[in-house]
Structures are given as structure tokens and as C-alpha cells.
């Protein structure tokens, strides 16, 4: 492979520039600088291509660009020694030469930062309105399905309950059990210092039943099922399946969203209950091993000293968490635009937002219940 070169000399017709070697895109680096430095000395310029071994669009661009530059300076340019195919290529390239460089991306700096901030604030506000709108729409369709049960997709509901509920039982139970174990273990170390080992029962029961059982279940479900909702509905959106449904007079909310959210509303309290029970079992087991609190004593103290309201407070929160997870996941799926990259971004956002909202809601519930004195 001969690398390209150019030589310049004065001849009778004007300045003669000879190109030689392979003028190919992959070898242009070696003549880029000499060409950029080239200046017409006087009069006409003749570009001689007779020694050029190969020419592609990159090489043709070099020649066309040189000609354009020189002509802009008022020099007349002639191209010789190009066979018809090469001459045609140079003409094709000249015809398609971009007028000027398109700037890449918007300008940076303070103004751009301010613009991004403004866009962010407006975006957050419109997103909030949009989520609330979607919540209203979903509740309307949900209630309509409950009033007119024949509209409900039974098979879809059962499938979703299996996916989001039944298949989540092992991980939720294991998580609850481990939380119970950890609480008992950590609590025991602290309580032993005061000789108040037996209060470990209250520690475990209240924290698991009231807060941890349902909160951690909701977080697991948000990560497991929320992302699955966004991914499955979102990929349908990418492939225009939702539009196809609308043209077939099928309501995507009713067909896709309602069964998923209803399934979550049903299974999340059940999963929360499973987490509660396995948490208590884990706690009782650890108390027995570590503190010598027998299971019998554990149950007795649980019955006597733990108000049933602690359990109720946990369970009351479950459907709200379910609604938040389901609505955010399905709303994010509806926001997917065109590409699969957007699908990935929305799935991530769905999990992060629903976990964040679940924790926020839990904090609000805490304040509410303590104000109510429960």
C-alpha cells in the first residue's frame, strides 16, 4: 500500500499539484496537514490525479474541499488525469459537500446550566401532574372493573398474582426471617446490659409488625415486580402494541394496568403477612438460642404486651404501598419513547421512584399514626 503524497511545481499552465499513491479514507492522515497548509502561489492551479492509485470518498473529499477553498479565494482550479469514474465521484462528493460544520450539541456554561435547571423543574411539575392524572385514570378503571366484574381480565389477574405474589413468597419469607434474627441478635446485646432481655419480644414484634415487615416487603416487590411491569408494558409501547390495542378498541389501562395493580393490591398484604410471621419466627428462634427466652414465653409476652394495633398499622399500609408501586411502574412504562434505551432508563426510574415513594409514604403514615395516638 502506497501512502498518498502531493508535490507542487510551477508549470506553463499555472501551479501544478500532483497527487500520488492511494487516496483512501484510511490513509488520509499523512496528507491532511500538507493539504491544509497548501496555498495557491499565483494564477491557476491544476490538480493532477494521473498518479493516484486508488480513490474513495475520503480522497475525493480532500480534492473537492481543496478546490472549493481555492475557488473561494478566487483561484481557478482544473482537475486533470482523472478517469470518468473518478471524475464522477469527485463531482458527486462536491455536490454533497456540507456547507458548514453543524455544531455538536448546545453551548455549555451558566446559561446552559440554568436552562437544564429550568427544564428539570418544569419536568418535575409536569411529571407530578401526569402521575396524578394516571392515578385518577387507573382508579376510575379499577372501580369500573369492580362494579362491572365481567370487564375484569380474570386469567391475566391470576397470572399476575402468581408472578408478583406466589413466586415472591420464598424471598419475602427468607427476608422476614433474617430481619427477625438480626433484630433479636442486635437487641439482645443491648438489652443484656440492663438485664432487660425479656423486652426483646416487644422489640421484635413491634418493629417487625408495625414497620419492617411491610416496608421491606414493599421494597422487594418494587424491585421485583415494579421493574417487571415497566419492562413488559414499556416494551409493548416500543413495539406500538399499545397503539394497536387502542385501534382495536381495547383499553390498555383496563387490559394491562388494572390486572397488575389489582394483583399487587391483593398479594402485597399477603406477602406482608408472611414477612411478619417469618420475622416473628426468626426472632423467637434467635431469642431462644441467644437469650434463653423459650418459644412459650415468647408467645405469652407477644399476646400480653403487643397491641393488635401494631399489626393493623402494618397491614393498613400495604394496599397504599401496592398502589404506589403499581401506578409508578405502569406510568413509567407509558412514558417510554421509541428506543430501547428509553425503556431501560424508565425501568430504572420506576424502581428508584417507587422505593422512594414507599419510604416517604411510610414516614407520613408514621406521623399520622403517632398524631392519632395509635
Amino acid at each position, binding site marked *: 500500500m502506497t501512502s498518498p503524497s502531493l508535490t507542487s511545481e510551477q508549470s506553463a499552465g499555472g501551479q501544478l499539484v500532483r497527487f500520488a499513491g492511494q487516496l483512501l*479514507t484510511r490513509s488520509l492522515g499523512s496528507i491532511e496537514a500538507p493539504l491544509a497548509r497548501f496555498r495557491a502561489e499565483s494564477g491557476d492551479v491544476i490538480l493532477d490525479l494521473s498518479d493516484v492509485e486508488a480513490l474513495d470518498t475520503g480522497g475525493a473529499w480532500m480534492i473537492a474541499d481543496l478546490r472549493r477553498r481555492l475557488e473561494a479565494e478566487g483561484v481557478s482550479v482544473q482537475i486533470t488525469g482523472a478517469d470518468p469514474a473518478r471524475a464522477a465521484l469527485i463531482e458527486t462528493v462536491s455536490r454533497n459537500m456540507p456547507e458548514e460544520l453543524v455544531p455538536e450539541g448546545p453551548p455549555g456554561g451558566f446559561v446552559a446550566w440554568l436552562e437544564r435547571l429550568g427544564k428539570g423543574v418544569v419536568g418535575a411539575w409536569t411529571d407530578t401532574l401526569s402521575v396524578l392524572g394516571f392515578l385518577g385514570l387507573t382508579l376510575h378503571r379499577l372501580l369500573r372493573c369492580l362494579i362491572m366484574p365481567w370487564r375484569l381480565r380474570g386469567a391475566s389477574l391470576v397470572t399476575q398474582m402468581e408472578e408478583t405474589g406466589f413466586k415472591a413468597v420464598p424471598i419475602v419469607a427468607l427476608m422476614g426471617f433474617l430481619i427477625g434474627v438480626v433484630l433479636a441478635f442486635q437487641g439482645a446485646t443491648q438489652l443484656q446490659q440492663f438485664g432487660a432481655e425479656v423486652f426483646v419480644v416487644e422489640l421484635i414484634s413491634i418493629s417487625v409488625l408495625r414497620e419492617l415487615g411491610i416496608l421491606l416487603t414493599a421494597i422487594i416487590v418494587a424491585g421485583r415486580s415494579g421493574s417487571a411491569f415497566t419492562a413488559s408494558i414499556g416494551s409493548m409501547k416500543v413495539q406500538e402494541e399499545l397503539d394497536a390495542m387502542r385501534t382495536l378498541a381495547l383499553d390498555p389501562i383496563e387490559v394491562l394496568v388494572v390486572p397488575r395493580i389489582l394483583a399487587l393490591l391483593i398479594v402485597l398484604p399477603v406477602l406482608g403477612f408472611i414477612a411478619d410471621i417469618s420475622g416473628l419466627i426468626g426472632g423467637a428462634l434467635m431469642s431462644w438460642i441467644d437469650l434463653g427466652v423459650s418459644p412459650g414465653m415468647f408467645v405469652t409476652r407477644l399476646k400480653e404486651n403487643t397491641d393488635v394495633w401494631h399489626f393493623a398499622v402494618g397491614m393498613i399500609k400495604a394496599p397504599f404501598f401496592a398502589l404506589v408501586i403499581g401506578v409508578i411502574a405502569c406510568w413509567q412504562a407509558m412514558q417510554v419513547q421509541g428506543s430501547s434505551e428509553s425503556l431501560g432508563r424508565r425501568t430504572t426510574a420506576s424502581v428508584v421512584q417507587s422505593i422512594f415513594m414507599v419510604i416517604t409514604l411510610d414516614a407520613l403514615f408514621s406521623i399520622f399514626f403517632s398524631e392519632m395516638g395509635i
Partner: protein
Amino acid sequence: MDGTPAPRTTQADAEREAVIRVRGLTNRFGPQVVHENLDLDVWRGEVLGVVGGSGTGKSVLMRSIVGLNKPAAGSIEVLGVDVLNGTEADRRRIEKSWGVAFQYGALFSSLTVLQNVLAPMREHLKISERLMQELGELKISLVGLPLTSCSKFPSELSGGMRKRAALARALALDPEIVFLDEPTAGLDPIGAAAYDDLIGELQRALGLTVFMVTHDLDSLYAICDRVAVLAEKRVLVEGPIEDMASVDHPWVREYFTGPRARAASEKGRST
């Protein structure tokens, strides 16, 4: 083999250089045999149109040649390099000398059109950023896209524009061979004709070899030098399109003498 003419071997064939040589290719997906003992030659500087009914493995053949699909048996040589058993260095060399435009574009969705075209250049060329960008814009302009589309993302383009952008990316490294999968499917007739002209012009100017999977009879008549028909798990017949009408095979006859073929053939002759 009976009932179909043997591949035409003339004196000229021996002198031509085969840039792609496929021998005894067999492709299988589970129990389904797509190709069996398929032979095909593509000569330097020609436009080869590959046609065949749905499911005859046109795309699979293309994917096998560019090494995306590992065949069960057979050998594939591109520019003298064994695609299946060649060394890593050889493979990298030929990967730079072909460009593939996929049916749905397969543009990188997180990059703009210009960045898509620049992506292979950044990786393989040692030229200045400015020159690279200008060449990228040239490629975009060559395939008939307005320069305003440089900064657009693939999801903002129409199907036809996406195909053009895919061609621009395939041409980024000025390849010797261009593979096109259904290049004109989904384009309007004017856009498709312009695309055909473009391929023809680029092919003549750059001496490209074009391997085109297509269903578009207009394209076949307008720019293809030769047609290869896939049927019965192999290349049933190959040759200039004028010879296809005389082939005695039901599918080939139906395809090349149907009403649409007649209209395309008249149009092809008049231009």
C-alpha cells in the same frame, strides 16, 4: 438438480475475481434445515441481488457471510480470508473492508446520526477530529439525508431516513463490499428509486461490490448485474435478470413473470 440449469460458467467467469466465495454452506436451526450444500460466488464490482420466498434464508445467508451466524458446515471466504477459521487479525481486517446496512438500521440508539457514522471512524481511522466530522457529514449528505438530521437520534427519524443513516454508517470506512438487507423495503417509490440510483452511483464511483437481499423488482431491474435465487435450501439459479424468465421452476417463473415483474422490467428497460 434435474430441471434447473447448471450455474453458468463462461470464459469470463474464470477471469473474474471472486470477493465472496461460499462453498457447501449448511445452516440448521434445530431440526429445520435452512441451507444445504449452498454454493455462491460474488464477483468484484458487481451488484448481486439475492431473492427468494419468505423463510428461504436470505438474511441467514448474509449473516453467515459476515460471521454473525455460525454455519453447521461449509466454508466462506471473503477477500481471500476464511471467515469461519481465519485468524483474529485477518477477521479484523476484513471487518473493516465491508459495511453492513441492516434491515431496520440497527443504529446505536444512544448516539445521534452523525455520532453513529463517526463511531467506526473514531475506532479505526487516524485522522483529525475536524476531517472526521466533515467526512461524516459528507456520508450523511451522500445518502440523501439533510444535514439537520446529523444531530437527531435514531428514534426521531422515519423508517426511510433510518435506512439511509444505516447506509451512511455502512459506508463510513469506505468499504469494498456493502451488504444491504432489504434496502428499499418500506420506502416510498420515489425514495426507493433514489436509493437505487444512489447505490448504483456509489457502486460505479467506488468500485463497490454490493450484496443485496431484496424483494424489490424495480431494484433488481435497475441496478443488479446478477440475481441469485434461493430456493430448495440452495442457490437454485443465478445469472442476469433477463435469463430468469426462462427458468423452469414454479416459484422463479411466478416471481419473474408476474404482473409486477413485467411492469418493473418495462420500467427498467425504458430508463
